[in-house]
C-alpha cells in the first residue's frame, strides 16, 4: 500500500466516522447499529442479538439501509448487552433477544425511541438518551480505548477511517528512528502493565544494542484476576496494537514481532489474527511497508495459563516454548531477550497509546496526567460497585471520582470499605484515602501499586484478612517454584492466614507474618515473589484491628470468615415453621412447631443453609 492509497481509504470511509459522530450523512446506510461484541456482552447473548437484528431488518425490508456492527467493549459491562443506534447515538442497555423486533419496528422503521430500554440515571431518575451523557462516561477521557465500541474491529478500513496507520506512515516516512524514540521519551509514557518503566528508555536501550536481529514483543498475558483492559483493546481495536508494534520495530530496528496472549481470551485471539491477516493483505505488515525499505511482520503466541508469564523474562521463555521461569536481570531483554536477541516488551495498553502520541504530539499527551505520570489509565472496575466495567481517566483522577461518580457507588446502600488495585501484587486502599489522586507514585506511597489496572471495590461485608488469604492462595498456586523464598515463603504465609481466619491465631502470628513478608520481598528473584506479600502488608497497615479481632476476640468483624461465625435464632422473629430444622444437615436446630427454635452451636457446622431457608430473617450470624 502507498500512503496515497491510505488517504483514499480514509476519504472513502469518512461518512462511517461522521455518522457515528452524530452527523446526518446522505448515504444508503442511513442508520448504524453498534452492538457490543466484547467477551462480557457476548456471554449475555450479544452475538445472537446481532444475528436476530439482521433477520428482523430483512423482514422489515430495510436491511440495506441499516448497518449492523459488532464492536469491541463499550466499557459499561454491568448494563450489557449494549446497543447504540446512530446517527442519534441512542443508547440501549440490557437488551434481550426478545427486544429486537420492537427496536427494529418502533425505532428503526417508525423513528420512535424505545424508552423502556434506555438507561436511567441513578441520581436524577431520568432516562438518558446517549452513552456520552451518562455519569459513567462524562468524567472519562478515552485514549487507549478510543476505538473500542466505535469501530468494527474486524474491518481494517474502519480503523483507517479513524486515522489508523497514519502514525506508522508518518513515523517511517517523515521521522528517523531516533525521532520516534525521542518523541516517546518526551511524552513521558510509562509501562501500563505494572511497573511503570518509561517506555522511551526501554526503546532506547534496545535501539542502542547492536544486532542483525531484534524483536518487538507485546505482553497480552493479562493475569491479574479482575483486569480485562488488554483483552478489551485486543477485541475492540486490534490494529492499534499492530500499528504501534510496527512503529516500535522501526524505532529499534526490528523486523519481527510476537504478541503473547492468554489462551483464555478466544475472541481477542481470533480478532487479532484477523487483523494481522488484513494488515498483511494490505501491505501494512510485511516487506517494504509504504514503499520504504522498512519491513515488519508479526505472529501470535498463546499462553497456557501461568501468571508468572506476565513477568518479561518468563514471558520470553514461554514464547521459546519452555517453562515460563524468570531469569535474573541483567542481562535485560533489551540486550539479550527473545532467542538471545535484543527485545522490547510492552504491554497492550502501552502500545495502544503510541500511535496517538506520534500523531497528536507530545504536548497533547503531556497535557493529561500528573507531573510524573502522563496520559490516561484504564481501570477495570469490579466487585461491589454499581457500574462494573472499563473506565479510562487521566492520571491523577481521585479514587472518589472513579468509584462514586463514574462507578455509581456501592450497591445495596452498603458502605465503601476499600479498593484493591494491582491484583496479587498490589494492596488495599482504605476509605480514608479515597481522595488520593491515582498515579504510579501515589499508589506506591500508600502501599499499593498500579499494576495492570484492576480495581476491585469492597464493602463492609468483605473481610480484609480473607482478601489477603485469597490473594495468597493465588500466589501459592502461581509461584513458579524456582526461588525458595517465594515457593515456600508464600505457602507459610498462607498457612498463617488460614490459622488466623480459622480462629487459631496467636498475637505472635501477626509479627511472624510481617517478618516473613520482609524476607520474601527482599529475597525473591522476580516481581511475582517481590510483590506477593503486598496484599498482606497493606491490609496489616490499614486494617490491623481486623487481624487483632480475628486473633484475640476470635471474631470476624465483616462476618465473612465462616469458622468464626456463630449462628443464632432471634426468638421474636422465629415463627417455628421448622423449615430450618429440616434443612440443617447436622441436626443442630431443635424446637417445637410454632415455637421459637434454637441452634446448638457445638453441633453447628456454619454452612449457612438455615439462613438461606428462613423466610422471616430470624437467623443471625455474627
Amino acid at each position: 500500500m502507498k500512503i496515497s492509497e491510505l488517504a483514499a481509504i480514509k476519504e472513502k470511509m469518512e461518512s462511517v466516522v461522521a455518522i457515528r459522530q452524530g452527523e446526518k450523512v446522505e448515504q444508503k446506510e442511513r442508520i448504524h447499529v453498534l452492538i457490543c461484541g466484547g467477551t462480557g456482552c457476548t456471554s449475555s447473548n450479544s452475538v445472537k442479538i446481532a444475528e436476530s437484528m439482521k433477520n428482523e431488518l430483512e423482514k422489515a425490508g430495510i436491511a440495506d439501509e441499516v448497518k449492523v456492527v459488532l464492536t469491541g467493549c463499550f466499557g459499561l459491562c454491568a448494563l450489557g448487552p449494549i446497543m447504540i443506534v446512530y446517527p442519534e447515538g441512542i443508547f440501549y442497555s440490557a437488551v434481550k433477544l426478545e427486544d429486537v423486533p420492537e427496536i427494529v419496528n418502533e425505532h428503526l422503521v417508525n423513528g420512535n425511541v424505545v424508552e423502556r430500554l434506555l438507561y436511567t440515571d441513578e441520581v436524577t431518575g431520568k432516562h438518558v438518551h446517549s452513552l456520552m451523557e451518562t455519569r459513567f462516561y462524562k468524567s472519562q477521557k478515552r485514549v487507549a480505548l478510543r476505538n473500542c465500541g466505535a469501530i468494527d474491529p474486524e474491518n481494517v478500513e474502519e480503523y483507517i477511517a479513524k486515522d489508523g496507520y497514519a502514525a506508522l506512515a508518518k513515523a517511517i516516512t517523515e521521522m528517523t528512528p531516533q525521532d520516534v524514540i525521542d518523541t516517546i521519551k518526551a511524552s513521558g509514557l510509562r509501562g501500563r502493565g505494572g511497573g511503570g518503566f518509561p517506555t522511551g528508555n526501554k526503546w532506547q536501550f534496545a535501539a542502542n544494542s547492536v544486532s542483525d536481529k531484534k524483536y518487538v514483543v507485546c505482553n497480552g498475558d493479562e493475569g491479574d484476576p479482575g483486569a480485562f483492559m488488554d483483552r478489551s483493546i485486543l477485541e475492540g481495536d486490534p490494529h492499534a496494537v499492530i500499528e504501534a508494534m510496527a512503529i516500535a520495530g522501526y524505532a529499534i530496528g526490528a523486523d519481527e514481532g510476537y504478541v503473547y496472549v492468554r489462551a483464555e481470551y478466544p475472541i481477542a485471539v481470533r480478532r487479532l489474527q484477523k487483523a494481522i491477516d488484513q494488515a498483511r493483505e494490505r501491505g501494512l505488515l510485511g516487506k517494504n511497508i509504504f514503499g520504504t525499505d522498512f519491513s515488519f511482520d508479526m505472529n501470535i503466541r498463546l499462553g497456557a495459563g501461568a501468571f508468572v508469564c506476565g513477568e518479561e523474562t518468563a514471558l520470553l521463555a514461554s514464547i521459546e516454548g519452555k517453562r515460563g521461569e524468570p531469569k535474573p536481570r541483567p542481562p535485560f531483554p533489551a540486550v539479550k531477550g527473545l532467542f538471545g536477541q535484543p527485545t522490547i516488551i510492552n504491554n497492550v495498553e502501552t502500545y495502544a497509546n503510541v500511535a496517538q502520541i506520534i500523531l497528536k504530539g507530545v504536548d497533547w499527551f503531556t497535557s493529561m496526567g500528573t507531573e510524573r505520570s502522563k496520559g490516561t489509565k484504564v481501570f477495570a472496575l469490579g466487585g461491589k460497585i454499581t457500574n462494573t466495567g472499563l473506565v479510562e481517566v487521566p492520571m491523577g483522577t481521585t479514587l472518589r471520582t472513579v468509584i462514586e461518580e463514574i462507578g455509581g457507588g456501592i450497591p445495596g446502600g452498603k458502605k465503601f470499605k476499600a479498593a484493591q488495585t494491582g491484583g496479587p501484587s498490589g494492596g488495599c486502599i482504605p476509605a480514608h484515602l479515597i481522595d488520593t489522586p491515582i498515579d504510579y507514585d501515589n499508589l506506591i506511597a500508600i502501599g499499593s501499586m498500579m499494576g495492570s489496572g484492576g480495581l476491585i471495590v469492597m464493602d463492609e461485608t468483605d473481610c480484609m484478612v480473607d482478601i489477603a488469604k485469597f490473594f495468597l492462595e493465588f500466589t501459592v498456586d502461581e509461584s513458579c517454584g524456582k526461588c525458595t523464598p517465594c515457593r515456600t515463603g508464600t505457602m507459610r504465609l498462607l498457612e498463617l492466614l488460614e490459622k488466623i481466619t480459622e480462629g487459631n491465631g496467636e498475637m505472635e502470628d501477626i509479627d511472624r507474618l510481617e517478618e516473613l513478608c520482609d524476607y520474601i520481598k527482599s529475597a525473591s528473584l522476580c516481581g511475582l515473589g517481590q510483590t506477593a506479600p503486598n496484599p498482606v502488608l497493606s491490609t496489616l497497615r490499614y486494617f490491623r484491628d481486623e487481624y487483632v479481632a480475628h486473633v484475640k476476640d476470635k471474631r470476624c468483624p465483616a462476618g465473612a470468615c465462616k469458622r468464626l461465625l456463630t449462628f443464632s435464632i432471634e426468638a421474636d422473629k422465629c415463627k417455628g415453621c421448622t423449615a430450618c430444622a429440616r434443612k440443617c444437615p447436622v441436626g443442630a436446630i431443635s424446637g417445637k412447631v410454632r415455637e421459637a427454635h434454637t441452634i446448638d452451636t457445638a453441633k453447628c457446622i456454619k454452612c449457612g443453609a438455615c439462613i438461606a431457608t428462613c423466610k422471616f430473617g430470624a437467623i443471625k450470624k455474627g
Partner: protein
Amino acid sequence: MKKKMTTVTFTGTPEQEQKLDAVIAKYGKDEGAIMRILQDAQEIYGYLPIEVQKMISIKTGVSLAEIYGVATFYSQFSLNPKGQVAISVCLGTACYVKGAGPVMEKICEILGVQPGETSADGKFSVDATRCLGACGLAPVITINEDVYGKLKPAEVKDILAKY
C-alpha cells in the same frame, strides 16, 4: 501448580496419532515449537496423558523430561481427561468478592468432587479458573461453551440438571 496423574487407561486411536503427526510436521522445525505442539495435542486427545507426551518426545527428539516439565508448568495443560461436561468456576477477584466461593462449594457438594477432579462416572469435571474477564457478570461459571452469570448458589442445582 500441583498436578495429579490420571488413573484412567489411555485409549488413543491411530487417527488421533495421524493428526498429531501432522501437527508435529507443521511446527516441528520452529524454535519454541513444544508449547504449540502440546496445545494442539490437547485439542486432539482432550488431555495430555504420559503416553501422548512420550509419543511427542520420540517424534520430536525433545526429552520427555522437558516435555513433562512444560506440561506440568502451565495450568491449561491437563494430565487428566475432562468430563463430558466441563464446568469452570471463575475465581478471579471480582467473582470472589461477589460470592464465587459458595457457588464452587455448592457445585462440588452436588457432584461429590473437589475442584480439579472429574466425577466418578466421568460425566462432570470441575475446575477453578482464573479471571474470564466477564467481571460485569460476576460470579460467572462456564459449562462447556455456555456462560452463566450473576449466579447464586441456590441456582446451581437447576443448572446442573440441564446436563
